[in-house]
C-alpha cells in the first residue's frame, strides 16, 4: 500500500487529511474523536484574545442541489467562544496523548505586534506543531479589523507573518482569504513575511438564499441576517484555481500549500495535491457526514496511488501544475469534435436543444419514422466546446474526439492572426 504520511512545512502527519479550523476542531472532545477516527491532523479552531467571542443563533445555511444534496454551506460563526486558558489546556493534553498527529493552532488577534507577541509563547508552550494565521474569516471578525480585513491587505499579511516568525519558533501557515481579486498578491506577501506555508481557501462571502415569506436572507437571526462564509463542494473549483495560481507563480514556487475548499473524497484530495498541495484540510464534508469519512478518503487515495504506481504523495504532488498555463500558451490548432454513441443515446434531445439554442447549431435532430429522433453531430459546425457532453445525462455517450488536422502546435503568442504575436 502507498505511504500516505507527510511532512508538511516541517510538520509530520500519518496522512494528509487534516480537519480545518472550524466547529469540528473546537474542543478536545471533537478532536479526540477525530483522531480516533483516523484523521492525520487538525487545525484547532481559531483562538483569540480573552474575553472570548460570543456567537449568535442561528448560524448556518445551505445551498442545495436538485436532490437536496448540500452543494455549499454558509456560516456566520466567529472564532472560538471558549476562553484562551481552557483551549490551551486542552491543546496541551491532546498533543501529549496523540503525539503522532499534526496539531496546528489557528490564531487571530488584533493587528498589533504586542497582541501577537503575547499569545505566541502561550501557544508554543502547548507543544503544538505549528500555527495557522486566520486571515480569512470574512464575517464578524473582519468588522473588528481582524480575519479577512487583514488578509485583504498584502502589507498587513506580510507584517503579521513576520511578527509571528520573530516571536515564535513554530512553523507558520498563513491562511488566505479568497475574497480578493488576485490570490497571488496575498501569497507573495506571506512568502515575503517568511511564512513556512499557505493554506487556502478560507470561506467566500455569501448569502445562500432568501426566505421569500419573511423577506429575510438565511441564516436568520431574529428578523435579520448577514452575509456569511461559503464552503463545501460548490467552492472547490474556485479553490483549485487559487491553489494552482500560487503553485505556478514563480515568486512563490515551492511554498508549501495546504489545500482547502470542498474536499469530500479522496479524488478531491488527489486533485488538490496534483495542483501542488502537500496536505489537505476538510470541514464541510465532515460536518455533514461525521468523522468516519476519513476512512474512505484514506483507502481510496491509497488504492488509487497503488494503481498509478505512486509510492508517496511526493510522487504526484504538483504533477498537474506544469500543465496549467495561461490561455495565450494553449495550442490554437488542437481540435476536438463531439461524437454521439448512438447505441448509448436515449434520445432526450438535450444536446440538440443546447447546441441549437445557445451554441453552434452543430447537432441535427432527425425525426425517425417511429416518431423518435436521432441526434447527429454536424462535424463541420462543431467547435468542440464540450457543451453537449456536459448536458448529456448518459455517461460516456458523447465523446470529444481529437481530430488529426495535420497542424502542429501553435499558441496565440505565435499565431499570425494575433496583431501582437511574437515574430520569430
Amino acid at each position, binding site marked *: 500500500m502507498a505511504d500516505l504520511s507527510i511532512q508538511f512545512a516541517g510538520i509530520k502527519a500519518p496522512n494528509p487529511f487534516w480537519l480545518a479550523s472550524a466547529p469540528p476542531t473546537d474542543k478536545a472532545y471533537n478532536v479526540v474523536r477525530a483522531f480516533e477516527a483516523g484523521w492525520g491532523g487538525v487545525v484547532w479552531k481559531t483562538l483569540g484574545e480573552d474575553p472570548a467571542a460570543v456567537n449568535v443563533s442561528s448560524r448556518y445555511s445551505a445551498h442545495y442541489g*436538485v*436532490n*437536496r444534496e448540500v452543494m455549499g454551506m454558509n456560516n456566520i460563526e466567529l472564532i472560538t467562544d471558549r476562553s484562551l486558558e481552557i483551549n490551551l489546556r486542552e491543546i496541551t493534553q491532546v498533543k501529549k496523548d496523540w503525539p503522532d498527529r499534526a496539531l496546528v493552532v489557528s490564531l487571530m488577534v488584533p493587528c498589533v505586534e504586542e497582541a501577537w507577541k503575547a499569545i505566541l509563547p502561550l501557544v508554543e508552550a502547548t507543544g503544538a506543531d505549528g500555527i495557522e494565521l486566520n486571515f480569512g474569516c470574512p464575517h464578524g471578525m473582519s468588522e473588528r479589523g481582524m480575519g479577512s480585513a487583514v488578509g485583504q491587505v498584502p502589507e498587513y499579511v506580510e507584517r503579521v507573518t513576520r511578527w509571528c516568525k520573530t516571536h515564535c519558533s513554530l512553523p507558520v501557515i498563513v491562511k488566505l482569504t479568497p475574497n480578493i481579486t488576485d490570490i497571488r498578491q496575498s501569497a507573495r506577501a506571506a512568502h515575503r513575511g517568511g511564512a513556512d506555508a499557505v493554506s487556502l481557501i478560507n470561506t467566500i462571502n455569501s448569502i445562500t438564499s432568501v426566505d421569500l415569506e419573511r423577506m429575510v436572507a438565511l441564516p436568520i437571526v431574529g428578523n435579520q441576517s448577514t452575509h456569511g462564509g461559503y464552503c463545501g463542494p460548490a467552492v472547490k473549483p474556485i479553490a483549485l484555481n487559487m491553489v494552482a495560481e500560487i503553485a505556478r507563480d514563480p515568486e512563490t514556487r515551492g511554498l508549501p500549500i495546504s489545500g482547502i475548499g470542498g474536499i469530500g473524497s479522496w479524488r478531491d484530495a488527489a486533485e488538490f495535491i496534483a495542483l501542488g498541495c502537500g496536505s489537505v484540510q476538510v470541514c464541510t464534508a465532515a460536518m455533514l457526514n461525521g468523522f468516519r469519512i476519513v476512512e474512505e478518503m484514506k483507502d481510496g487515495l491509497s488504492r488509487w496511488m497503488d494503481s498509478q504506481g505512486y509510492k508517496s504523495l511526493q510522487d504526484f504532488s504538483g504533477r498537474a501544475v506544469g500543465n496549467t498555463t495561461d490561455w495565450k500558451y494553449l495550442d490554437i490548432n488542437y481540435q476536438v469534435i463531439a461524437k454521439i454513441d448512438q447505441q448509448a443515446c*436515449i*434520445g*432526450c*434531445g*438535450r444536446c*440538440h*436543444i443546447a447546441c441549437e439554442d445557445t451554441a453552434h447549431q452543430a447537432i441535427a*435532430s432527425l425525426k425517425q419514422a417511429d*416518431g*423518435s*429522433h436521432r441526434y447527429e453531430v454536424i462535424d463541420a459546425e462543431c467547435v468542440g466546446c464540450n457543451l453537449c457532453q456536459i448536458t448529456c*445525462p*448518459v*455517461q460516456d455517450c458523447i465523446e470529444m474526439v481529437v481530430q488529426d488536422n495535420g497542424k502542429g502546435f501553435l499558441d496565440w503568442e505565435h499565431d499570425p492572426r494575433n496583431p501582437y504575436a511574437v515574430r520569430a
Partner: protein
Amino acid sequence: MIESLNHLPHPRDNAATLADNFSDLAPPLNDRQARLESSRCLYCYDAPCVNACPSEIDIPSFIRNIHQENIQGAAQTILSANILGGSCARVCPTEVLCQQACVRNHHQECAPVLIGQLQRYALDNANFDAHPFQRAAATGKRVAVVGAGPAGLSCAHRLALHGHDVVIFERCEKAGGLNEYGIAKYKLVDDFAQREVDFLLQIGGIEIRHGRTLGVDLTLTELRQQFDAVFLGLGLAASRQLGMADETAPGMLAATQFIRELRQADDLTKLPLADRCIVLGAGNTAIDMAVQMARLGARDVNLVYRRGHEDMGATLHEQDIAKAAQVRLMTWAQPQQVLLDDQGRVRGMRFERTHLVNGRLCATGETFELAADAIFKAIGQAFDDSALDDPMARELQRDGERIQVDGQLQTSIAGVYAGGDCTALGQDLTVQAVQHGKLAAEAIHAQLMLNVEAA
C-alpha cells in the same frame, strides 16, 4: 342486489378489513418523494413522453413546475391539456404510454420517471381559490352532449370554456362514465370520480340531465334540431356474450355489471362472494374483476384466456397486480360448456385447451373442468345499437359497429360529432376519450364561430 348472484354468501371479512383491501392501490407521493421524483426528469426536448400521451400533456413542463414548488402551475399545465388529468393519473396504463416512452428506461437505469404519480401529486395538491379556467364571453350557441363519460365531460368543459352553453344527456344517476362505474375501486378511491366531475362543472355553463337515454327517450333528430351541434360520447354500453347455452343461469354475470355494483356499494360486506370463481377474458376489466373478487375474500380465482400471456390486452403491470392478489392466470383454454348443479346454478365450466395451427386458434380436443360458484364474462364491450334508432341516427356512417368520424371527430352528418370508445379512432382509453372530447369541442367551436363570422 345482483339477482343472478343472490344465492351466494357474503364476504367473511368485516367492513374495516374490506375497506383496507380496497384502499389506494398506489398511494400518493408525499412532498419529498415528489421533489425527488421530479428531479429525475431530464426535461427532454421533443420529449418522447409527450408524444406517447394521447392527450398531449406537456409533461416536462409540469414536472419542472413541481420541482420548482409551483404546484398550481403544474396542475394548470396538466388540466389545460386534459381536464380529467386527475383520473387519468390514476387509471392510465402509463406503463404502455408516457412511462414506457420515458428515456430513463434506458439500460443504465431501467426505471422511468413516475409521471402518473407526479401528475396525481400536482392535481391533489394544487389549491385553486377558484376554477382555474375562465369562460369566454357567451356566444349564445348551445351544444348537446350525449353521455357524461370522459369524452362527453371533456368536450363539455372545452365548449363551456369557449363560451358555449352545454346540455349533457346522461342515462345514469351519476356523471363520470367508466370512472364512476367501471374502474376497479382501489384505482379511484374516495369518490374521486364525483369530486372530479364537481370540479369540472365549476366552469359553469354545463347542465347535466340525468336519466335520459338516446334511443329511449331521446333522438338524434330532435337533438340536432334543438341544438347548434351535437357530440356523441356513447361509449360501449353492451357486454359481449359467449353465445353459449345456459349463459343466463344464476352465477353467470358480465364483469362490468359486478364492478358497477361494487363501485356503488356503500357496504362491501353485503356483496355476494364467489369463493371459487372464473373470469373469462384478458383485458384490464378482466383483471379488475378477478382482483376485486380476490380482495373480497375469494380463495380460488381463475382468469382464463384462450390465447397466451403475450396476447393479453392487460398490461404486464396489470397482470402483476393479479398475480399479487393470488389470481391464477390460465392461458390457452376456451369455454366449452357452462356446468350447472341440480338447481340450475353455475357449478363450474368445462374448457377445451387451445393452440395455434398455422396462426389460427384451434381446440386441441383436450378438455378440463374448473369448479366455480360464479363465472364473470370480461370478453369485451360492444356498441349498443339501440341508441341509434331514429331516422337521422340510422343515417350515421359506421366503422364496423362503431360510429365513423373524421380527423376532426365529425360524423357523416354535419354538426354531429362523436368521440371516445363509440368511435374506432385510437385506443379505448380514458385519456383517449378525453382527447377526443377536447378535439371535437375545438372543431365544434371553430365551426360555430365560422358560421357566426359568415352571418
